[in-house]
């Protein structure tokens, strides 16, 4: 009984897609997600990278890493599992060999990073601080690596630990730090609050959900590390819920939403739930220009619905109207 507001459609060209993630201004709200766009170079063959609002790099650690044994990926219903093992070129090579290319593009470069332990996180933030003024817009701190061993789980699941880690990293860089949280927790608001209090410029929600798949012929897991991270449309409802929970509980905190976005309507759901911008991850594997398709669809869908700008709809969701009172006699 909650009817759609019959709003007059508007001209798609007039839709204002600009958005702000905290102090950061973006031409539109759609970025490519970490680990799903490498360092951008491979995509240059298939699309005009300059049309992107921004991208998050593969997670960078202080030293290069080689990653996990295979198999590393498998598909599930409307999703996929991965356990890449955070393979990356390391902070030094990133700054020297990857950043110049990204800087040239003129898009918002988010450098996703992590460390194998507390000290390595701080070291990585310190190393990447050198990229300020060299093209890095945001440090996206990944505290949710299901695929590294060494006690990493606590960074993402214990608020006090996340708080201390965030504070320590914020202290060594003037770049804004957006903390990427894991959904594998009972209380996402508590986590978001902890990192916000520690000086995070915002949060990225969500990383993958830990999952498993089994090959019944071989009686082995389909992922060599046994468990992997679930991404794709399967997890979208969980991601939306967490974005909405955090946006509602912590209205001042900037949120970058992600998890299963493949269409403009998906992106719109995240924005309405409270995300200032979103990232497109797994969808890039089906088509490298997935983020651009999402932008085009978002513009068209907003025009259809008569929505003039992104800024007016961030977090606009209202509860369903209460039902009429019951006459019980």
């Amino acid at each position, binding site marked *: 009984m909650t009817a759609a507001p019959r709003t007059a459609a508007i001209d798609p060209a007039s839709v204002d897609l600009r958005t702000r993630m905290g102090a950061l201004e973006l031409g539109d709200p759609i970025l490519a997600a970490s*680990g*799903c*766009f*490498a360092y951008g170079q*491979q*995509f240059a*063959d*298939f699309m005009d990278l300059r049309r992107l609002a921004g991208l998050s790099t*593969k997670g960078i650690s202080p030293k290069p890493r*080689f*990653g*996990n*044994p*295979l*198999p*590393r*990926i*498998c*598909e599930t*219903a*409307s*999703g*996929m599992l*991965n356990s*890449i093992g955070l*393979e990356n070129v390391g902070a030094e090579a990133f700054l020297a060999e990857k950043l110049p290319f990204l800087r040239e593009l003129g898009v918002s470069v988010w450098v996703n990073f992590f460390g194998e332990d507390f000290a390595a996180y701080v070291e990585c933030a310190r190393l990447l601080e050198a990229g300020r003024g060299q093209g890095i817009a945001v440090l996206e701190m990944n505290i949710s690596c299901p695929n590294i061993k060494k006690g990493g789980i606590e960074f993402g699941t214990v608020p006090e630990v996340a708080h201390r880690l965030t504070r320590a990293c914020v202290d060594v860089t003037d770049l804004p730090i957006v903390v990427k949280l894991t959904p594998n927790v009972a209380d996402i608001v508590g986590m978001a609050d902890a990192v916000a209090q520690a000086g995070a410029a915002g949060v990225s929600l969500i990383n993958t959900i830990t999952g498993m798949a089994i090959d019944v012929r071989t009686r082995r897991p389909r992922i060599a590390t046994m468990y992997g991270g679930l991404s*794709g*449309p399967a997890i979208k409802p969980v991601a939306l819920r967490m974005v909405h929970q955090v946006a509602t509980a912590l209205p001042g905190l900037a949120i970058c939403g992600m998890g299963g976005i*493949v269409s403009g309507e998906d992106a719109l759901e995240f924005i309405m739930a409270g995300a200032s911008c979103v990232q497109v991850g*797994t*969808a*890039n*594997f*089906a*088509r*490298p*220009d997935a983020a651009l398709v999402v932008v085009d669809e978002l513009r068209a869908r907003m025009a259809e619905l008569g929505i003039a700008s992104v800024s007016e709809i961030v977090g606009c969701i209202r509860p369903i109207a209460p039902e009429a009172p019951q006459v019980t006699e």
Partner: protein
Amino acid sequence: MPSQFSARVDTNRDLGGGYVVLEFAAEGGGLGDVVAGQFAMLRGDWGRELLNPRAFSVLWSAPDGRFAVLLKAYGRGTTRLVASQPGARVTVTGPLGHGFAPPDGVRTQLLVAGGVGLPPLHLQARQSAARGHAGVTELYYGGRNRDDLVMLDDFAAWGVRAVLATEDGSAGIRGFVTAALEERLVEAQRSGEQVEILSCGPTPMLAAVRKIGLRFEVPTWLCLEEEMACGFGVCLGCAVPVHGPRPYLYCCSDGPVFEAKQVRWP
């Protein structure tokens, strides 16, 4: 240069034994020149249940944008593709990866094929024949039974000698084709003939070919299949364990053709 374009199923040809050749017509673009062993990522209108495209070796690619793949229903993606009707739309990315080197005119190329691993070797033979090198190409082709051995006429037409093997003996020699390969290598060793091996097929077959190649110290090239998501070096999903300074290379961007001695298999 790889590109992404849209194509439609032109014909769906049943070869028996579950094997199907899908011919596509590109709607703008196309694969262009393809090296044998290169592949394309295909994705149909699969909605959200199946997210990722599937990799297929290119069977042939024509200048007008038409191309073909050979496949068999295996899991969810291939089952849908095998059932696809003329007119069905797919998104194509390719050609991707690095293929086989053409014959150098000195070494005899022994093509060792099994199952849906045939296309790279079929294309290699086609191109060799077109370049007048058919005489230095031989096919070793194995299957469970005669239905697994398809497109033999093409090899005959190109003048490629074909040695066949089936597990049930219904065509060619009985047993694995690697037995015939070994005999051939013994003979080459004896005569001092220079040979190299190019192979594509099920992993157990490739593992056997690799060991044989290493044992006979013959240059051996394996076209590998690893589970892929992106197909061009982005997701890092398709790792291949290798020897050398780095523990892994990538099937899609560094391969799919790897030298046997580089591959880190037991």
